[in-house]
């Protein structure tokens, strides 16, 4: 028994090593660079610099806007699709689900390049609608990440709950708003967090779409390629803080949903 315990524990060692080498250490390095200047002295100038520079603040707002609109579009597209998939008794349901997931299996750069060609056909000059193109690109890339978690929660939803609601006098719309929607919030939350955060940072999508606008990811990239490790690190750190804040916020919503008085959410 003792031997077994030891061996099981030791299975975790490779991951622990990985964790230290590639997560904990880089984080410390990031922290060090963010709060030092070129001479290696402690400074908060990088932090104050970020929040006083209208350019960086503008980029932050722009990224938030791109991420927000992308998430919203994804949600509006994904929820009905996931709902139909989860509630229908289609014989070829598996095939349909596959169709939604398939894009994830095709190489990312290939997909975006294809999208770029398509957009060029429709718009002529890609530079005319940079914001729209950013949202379209991100949506195209991240939509499956929104559909899957929502589909999962919806398909696990106990059908007798809907029947109970209708039995108690709720019509289809009311049953959806009061039962289905609140109970699918966990799926929505995990979908949102899987789309919102990457949409703020994934500048490769923009680059490949020849999009000249800057999001947070592109900002970090540009600082690093200009060898400004300190400024770049600080932005990365700020992004991390935003992510943590966002996660805490959405987690709070999930907890609320489980304990709260019904209907309060709506």
């Amino acid at each position, binding site marked *: 028994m003792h031997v077994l315990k030891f061996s099981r524990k030791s299975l975790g060692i490779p991951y622990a090593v990985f964790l230290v080498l590639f997560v904990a250490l880089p984080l410390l390095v990031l922290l060090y660079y963010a709060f030092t200047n070129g001479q290696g002295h402690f400074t908060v100038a990088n932090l104050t610099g970020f929040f006083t520079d209208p350019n960086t603040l503008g980029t932050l707002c722009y990224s938030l806007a791109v991420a927000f609109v992308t998430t919203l579009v994804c949600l509006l597209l994904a929820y009905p699709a996931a709902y139909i998939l989860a509630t229908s008794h289609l014989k070829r349901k598996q095939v349909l689900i596959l169709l939604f997931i398939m894009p994830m299996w095709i190489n990312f750069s290939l997909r975006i390049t294809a999208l770029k060609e398509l957009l060029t056909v429709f718009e002529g000059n890609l530079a005319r609608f940079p914001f729209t193109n950013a949202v379209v690109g991100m949506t195209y890339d991240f939509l499956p990440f929104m559909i899957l978690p929502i589909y999962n929660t919806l398909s696990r939803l*106990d059908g*007798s*709950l809907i*029947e*109970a*609601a*209708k*039995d*108690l*006098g*709720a*019509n289809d719309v*009311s049953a959806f708003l*009061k*039962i289905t929607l*609140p*109970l699918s919030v966990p799926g929505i939350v995990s979908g949102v967090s899987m789309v919102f955060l990457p949409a703020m940072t994934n500048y490769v999508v923009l680059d490949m779409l020849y999009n000249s606008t800057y999001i947070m990811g592109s900002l970090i990239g540009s600082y690093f390629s200009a060898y400004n490790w300190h400024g770049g690190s600080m932005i990365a750190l700020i992004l991390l803080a935003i992510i943590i804040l966002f996660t805490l916020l959405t987690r709070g919503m999930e907890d609320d*949903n*489980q*304990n*709260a*008085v*019904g*209907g309060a*959410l709506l």
Partner: protein
Amino acid sequence: MGKYASELLTCDARLKNENWEILKMPNQNEKIIELKNITKTYEDGFTAVSDFNLYVLRGEFVTFLGPSGCGKTTTLRMIAGFELPTSGEILLNGRNISDLPPYERPINTVFQRYALFPHMNIYENIAFGLRQKKLSEDVINKKVKRVLELVDLEGFEGRSVSTLSGGQQQRIAIARAVVNEPQILLLDEPLGALDLKMRKEMQLELKEMHDRLGITFIYVTHDQEEALTMSDTIVVMSEGKIQQIGKPEDIYNEPKNAFVADFIGESNIFNGIMTGHLKARFCGGEFDCVDDVEKGTHITAVVRPEDVEITPVDEGTIRGTVSSVIFKGMHYEITVQSGRNEMVIQSVNTPKVGDTVGMRVAPDNIHIMIAEDNTNYFTADINSDFRLEFNGKVLDTSVTRIIKGSHRNEDGTLVDAAGDTIDPNRNRIIVSIQPQDIRMTDQVEEGLVDGYISNLIYKGDHYSYVIHTDLGQDFIVDDEYLWNMDDHVGLLMPVEKMSFRLKK
């Protein structure tokens, strides 16, 4: 209902019982709901309910009883509005409601797994139906309070569903339905998920609640004891059809066919034949009976275990060897093997295993039914390979193949769809086969059983034979060719023509 509801609210909360009394409708003899020629066929062609006709009186406690898959839940769901009948109509107070959606029917349901809303607290769960009616918060508040008193869960308003025990969730589910003052309350196996003790308590509580509220209850269960305990009327169902409708006593004492007799209570059921005026031959003996059935008619004889009298060997109508004696508290359950037949007896006497005893049944305790369908039933053993064995021969099938949902667990034990263990030593399989599916052969040893033709009747286009076997059991075989009386024949029974049922 509106008038009653408002009166209800003006009453003092302390007079809880009297309050609910008001709901009792004066006219007890009018039909509240009527199902006419209801048939439900699913898209895949499966007919769950066929030509179902039933009316329920106002204030009645009606139970749909039957094994799983008999159509009882489908019928309930059609009354609730979750399923639409393929044909036929449902009349509520004389009005056709067959096509109304569930939310427009003054009917509420208590679901099998409660179906409480997990994201709402108890108060909101119960208030859900009232909020749909757009009642004022004040009224809702009072009603919720009142109904929580009714189910003995005062002060639970703020609790979340997940902190409640199964029994408490059950009560909340009932409260959530009852608070809407439905004309009919539907209960879909509501006690199935509770443990035995809790179940017994809730049975009495539900019965009491029914008496107090005066609401019509339609209850679905597969538990015959539950049905006998609670119902005013029992509807026994099998394979989508009503087998019998009646009071619990009538269903128990006068079962209409072998299925009902077997399903309700413990029964010894034998195939037999009338051998003379008020004389029936079954289980290897000739018994006097009180049912006047024409000589030569194939019959099914039902004998309740408590009606069999154990006698000294030579005083019994039949004799047998005691194969088991189990203490059951109030009595002993004694199994006696008589030829191939098995007689289960409830008695306060205690013969020893291995004793040879005589058995006697008073004529009025033998219930004779004319075998309409002449189906042959026999009981097969389960051997150690989980295959079926009968008359020392192994049938070409296994338990997992014939009992729907049964499977082998990781530890090698066999369990049925509900997860109960199937024990080869205790469980047996009741096999049924139609007379026309059995073939007779001169190669006696090829048959699953062999015996002598003891009776034959010409039925217009075929002969109906009774084959008397050494097992003490008679088989009925239809054959278009003429065989002679007393011919020694083997009976070929193809496995694919058999149907099977687990005997617990």
